[in-house]
């Protein structure tokens, strides 16, 4: 496949990104105008979008699929889909990162449910401690933007305040794609108990994170 001139320019621009430059690229603060530029076929904008969001999306894919190979493959598919479908993004319906996370989450869960999907790690792992990076996949925490670090701290505190059963139920639904009935069977708990745990957990998180939305606007 041949590259256009603009492709080459993008590669050169990306290669020149320094950790200091990346530190300014917060996933939580992607500008909707960047999406508009990507929609118009701006390769440089697409490259910047990748730099700002790929670490978060890859981490989530890794958490859901449990395999670096699968997560990498999924990330590639998702960004190509973003490139093709970015025109459908509507700023009125949420922030760019919300759209990207939702799309990636949906595709990862679909992949998890595919017949013959690679078996993933078992449930019950802690939300933030699993799948420690190795080799070239170093945690980007030192390079996280201030905005992302602040948001991470806020979400982590809110999450830590949840009782373990509520965390477990939400984790199994969100990261393993299990339905309420499947969660009940996995935890050997009544169906209504699972429903209540998810409902209460989500309500607590909503209240805890409300200050963030009030300050930064809804995701």
């Amino acid at each position: 496949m041949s590259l256009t001139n603009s492709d080459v320019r993008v590669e050169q621009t990306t290669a020149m990104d320094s950790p200091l430059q990346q530190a300014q690229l917060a996933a939580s603060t992607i500008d909707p105008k960047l999406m508009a530029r990507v929609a118009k076929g701006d390769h440089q904008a697409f490259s910047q979008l990748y730099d700002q969001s790929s670490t978060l999306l890859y981490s989530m894919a890794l958490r859901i699929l449990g395999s670096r190979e699968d997560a990498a493959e999924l990330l590639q598919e998702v960004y190509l889909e973003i490139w093709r479908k970015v025109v459908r993004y509507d700023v009125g319906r949420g922030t760019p990162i919300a759209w990207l996370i939702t799309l990636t989450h949906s595709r990862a869960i679909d992949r998890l449910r595919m017949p013959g999907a690679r078996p993933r790690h078992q449930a019950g792992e802690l939300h933030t401690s699993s799948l420690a990076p190795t080799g070239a996949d170093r945690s980007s925490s030192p390079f996280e933007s201030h905005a992302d670090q602040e948001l991470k701290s806020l979400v982590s505190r809110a999450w830590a305040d949840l009782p373990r059963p509520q965390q477990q139920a939400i984790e199994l639904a969100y990261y393993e794609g299990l339905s309420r009935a499947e969660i009940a069977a996995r935890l050997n708990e009544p169906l209504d108990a699972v429903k209540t745990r998810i409902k209460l957990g989500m309500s607590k998180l909503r209240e805890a994170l409300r200050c963030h939305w009030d300050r930064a606007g809804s995701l």
Partner: protein
Amino acid sequence: MTHEELEDAVPLYAVGALERTERQVLEAHLLSGCLACHSSLKEHQSVAVLLPFSLTLTQPPRAIKTKIMAARTPAAAAESVSQPPNKPSLEPGEWMNHLFPPDEPSPASSFAWVAGVVLLALLAGGGYFAWDSYTRIAEDTTKLAQLQTELDRTRSALAERERSLTASREDIQRRTSDVAALKDQLIQREAELDDAQAQLALRGGPPLRAPQDELGLLLRTPDVKAIPMAGTTMAKPAAGMLLFDARTKKAWLYAVNLPACPDGATYQVWAIYEKPVSVGLFCVNNGDTSHLFVTPLPNFKNAKQFIVSLEPVGGRSELSGPIYLSSQLP
């Protein structure tokens, strides 16, 4: 599904914990334009998309970006240029595209858009129907369980009543036996009374017709019943004849060749029904070869047999002594 149940399902929808049918029902409800649920969903979806921010971050392999950049096709870019960047408004249900983006770009024609809406409505309707059926089945199952419990309770009460009825039957049977025994005693007392009256007459009481005269009169009565009695091994030469007068309900026993009663003993006449019932007492003195005994016998027709036994003076309530005369009714 009530509105409250739908509202409760929103947080589960946001994290993807609803079954397909439940999801379709909620989506149909959201399409109907419920602002409260729509607002709740937006908030919960906002929570859900924040969850990955608390993950331990891992950088993707550097080679991926190169692959992605290289894999983009001019055609895909052209598509993106040809499409309008933003849609003008938040139309009902369009927020769902965030969760389930279509695999292919939407064609611009209104026909396809309408077809999509119709298909979604059909799916939502089908989902609602399935959910409604599921709810009804669940309600029916609950009712069935209640009916089963009620049936068990009724069966238990019925068994208790049967036990009570059996106890009542046994009580009635016991009381019937008691009444029969009382009747027997009454007959015996009547016989004793007759005997006492006879003895009173012999000791100078008011003049009575001589038994022999009465027997003569009885023998002339056409419908009198005559029961022959034979001596047993205790008194082989003995014999007897029991006559019954249905008009006066009196029995006449004429016995011959019975041995004289030893001291402290007397003959006792028994009518055998289900069990022996005493009819009366008489005594044979030394030198007597015959004896005439008369007694009321109201229940003659049910008697199966008549017996004369030797019992202690005063008689017994139950047959216990040796039998001297016995009859066998046809």
